[in-house]
């Protein structure tokens, strides 16, 4: 083969438009260098400062390029409204989660160890769990994950999307195994997440192969064209789409691909759980929306029944199983599964006029849910006894008498999850269900409303337990949070309140951003 310049051109890359993720990748790389060369005592302040500055810089760049609407890097990355909106969301939620990750006053040396793979229960593991000056690897990992998520929501072809999926998944697997307390549970969570995640990635990759077999292209726009014009067998398309959907729905924690969620949410260090619940959800749904709206819009009618079924299953299973939980982290995990169902309802408002509203309301939902869930897990990190966090629900009995402020805060967040008016939970559910109604998905809305009522029960049970029970012998105390956790809690609770009272600015913003570039 003769290579000529015409045949092979360097792609045009708009570095400014890509700068948010480039900043994060760059900062993460510097973070690795800091780990390798800075003295032990200085790593924590340096890493925290570096992560915060880079995240703020990424957010500033997102705002500065907010009006960019173009494909760049040879069509591999789309910088458009939804991509920038979700990148901004990821940066903000990343900052809030970082504040929880960086908290060191609750536990000397912070909630992380340095090496995830040391055999649990050995002498080496005990030694590293007692160290006070290690465990700063989590900051570069967090930045790599966030950079990967940003690429994931703006990827415009399937291979870029797959690479981004791996870039954000691998750090997450590792971060799950870094808990200082309950090492074995943490390692179990990491291994489970890794194995199941690897399966999901394999499905995703095989789906790409099938789609390539059908369309002869991996670019979203080309797939969109091919669905109309290709003479290949459509079974390849459906097979590929199903496999792709498995990969994406796994990350989104939709039933029946949800089995990892409770175990991983429970075993992972709570700040990492908060990060996963908020940011992974944004990334997974951002990518799902892009795949469905940009590449497979013309198969939306065929998709509707399948994804609708998954949405119903997710809402029902998530809310019913949440009722039976006795551990607060598992309860929040099942609540997160049910919320994935509500988000799928928003995703399903695809096709025709619902396109725009479905997209805008889903993005609004992601922001609202992200803030609430980070704050909720933030409160979970505070309820502790000598063995670390006390997550069993029976231990929370009578917590309201001991510390009314944090119990009140948690109650407010639970009410937001339950969708009580004047909280962001109400406005976001209202927006999503409204969009689904507008596109004629009344059955989904009815089921969504029913499951919301079911889901309100476990939340209210916790509220009753916290306020109306007598504090028992072993009710733990609520630790006084340091400045970082306080800031994270304040931001999360304020956003939950503000998006409940005055959602219009963000609704307008998401509505203006809700236009994909093909």
């Amino acid at each position, binding site marked *: 083969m003769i290579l000529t310049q015409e045949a092979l051109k360097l792609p045009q890359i708009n570095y400014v438009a890509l700068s948010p993720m480039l900043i994060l990748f760059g900062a993460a790389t510097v973070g690795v260098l800091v780990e390798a060369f800075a003295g032990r005592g200085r790593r924590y302040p340096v890493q925290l400062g570096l992560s915060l500055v880079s995240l703020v810089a990424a957010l500033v760049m997102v705002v500065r390029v907010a009006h960019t609407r173009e494909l760049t890097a040879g069509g591999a990355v789309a910088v458009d409204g939804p991509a920038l909106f979700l990148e901004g969301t990821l940066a903000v939620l990343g900052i809030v989660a970082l504040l929880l990750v960086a908290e060191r006053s609750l536990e000397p040396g912070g909630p992380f160890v340095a090496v995830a793979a040391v055999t649990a229960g050995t002498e080496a593991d005990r030694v590293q769990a007692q160290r006070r000056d290690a465990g700063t690897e989590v900051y570069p990992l967090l930045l790599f994950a966030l950079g990967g998520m940003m690429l994931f929501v703006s990827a415009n072809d399937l291979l870029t999307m797959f690479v981004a999926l791996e870039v954000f998944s691998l750090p997450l697997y590792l971060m799950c195994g870094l808990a200082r307390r309950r090492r074995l549970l943490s390692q179990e969570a990491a291994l489970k997440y890794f194995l199941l995640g690897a399966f999901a990635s394999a499905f995703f990759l095989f789906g790409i192969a099938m789609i390539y077999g059908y369309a002869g292209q991996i670019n979203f726009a080309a797939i969109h064209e091919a669905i109309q014009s290709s003479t290949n067998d459509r079974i*390849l398309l459906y097979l590929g789409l199903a496999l792709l959907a498995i990969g994406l729905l796994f990350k989104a924690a939709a039933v029946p691909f949800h089995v990892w969620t409770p175990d991983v949410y429970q075993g992972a260090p709570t700040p990492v759980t908060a990060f996963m619940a908020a940011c992974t959800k944004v990334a997974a749904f951002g990518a799902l929306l892009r795949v469905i709206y940009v590449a497979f819009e013309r198969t939306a009618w065929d998709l509707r029944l399948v994804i609708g079924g998954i949405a119903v299953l997710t809402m029902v299973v998530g809310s019913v199983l949440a009722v039976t939980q006795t551990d607060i982290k598992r309860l929040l995990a099942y609540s997160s599964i049910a919320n994935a169902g509500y988000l799928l309802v928003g995703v399903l408002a695809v096709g025709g006029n619902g396109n725009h509203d479905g997209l805008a309301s889903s993005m609004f939902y992601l922001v609202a849910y992200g803030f609430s869930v980070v704050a909720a897990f933030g409160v979970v990190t505070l309820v502790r006894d000598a063995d670390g966090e006390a997550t069993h629900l029976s231990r929370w009995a009578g917590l309201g008498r001991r510390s009314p402020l944090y119990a009140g805060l948690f109650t407010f967040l639970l009410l937001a999850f339950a969708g009580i008016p004047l909280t962001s939970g109400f406005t976001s559910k209202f927006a999503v269900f409204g969009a689904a109604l507008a596109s004629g998905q009344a059955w989904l809305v009815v089921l969504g409303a029913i499951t919301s009522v079911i889901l309100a029960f476990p939340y209210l049970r916790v509220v009753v337990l916290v306020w109306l029970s007598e504090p028992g012998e072993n009710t733990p105390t609520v630790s006084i949070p340091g400045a970082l956790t306080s800031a994270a809690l304040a931001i999360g609770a304020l956003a939950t309140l503000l998006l409940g009272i005055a959602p219009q600015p963000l609704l307008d913003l998401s509505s203006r951003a809700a236009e994909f570039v093909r």
Partner: protein
Amino acid sequence: MRSTGMRLIVGTLRCMRGYLGSYATLGLLLVVGAAALTGAFGVNRLLRPGRPGDPAGKFANYECGLDPVGGDWAQVQIRYYLYAYLYVLFAVESVFLFPWAVVFALPGFGRTAVVEMGIFVGVLALGLLYAWRKRVLRWT
């Protein structure tokens, strides 16, 4: 209009002849293989005498006719996995270096290509640097 299930079946049948047709042989081989294995074991089961019991040595490990030494569960320390990681690092690197070397000499590529490859190799070298500083390369 045919139902979705009907369409799926028809589509699958058509697929057998089309893009996925070449996999039909593989599928057939798998089926035949499974059948041969089940058949052989089934015949074995039917024909052999049934002698339940637990005489000494029946469940011992078989080691080429010699008396077995020790149990069959041995733990192996996987010290090499870190080296495997590092190998993967550089195997991936070389995969990208070959096409780079091909386009390098084309007009318009020289300097840009060098810089881009410098960044790529630099990031990979960073991983090695980190491993080195964390004393991964030292044999313990």
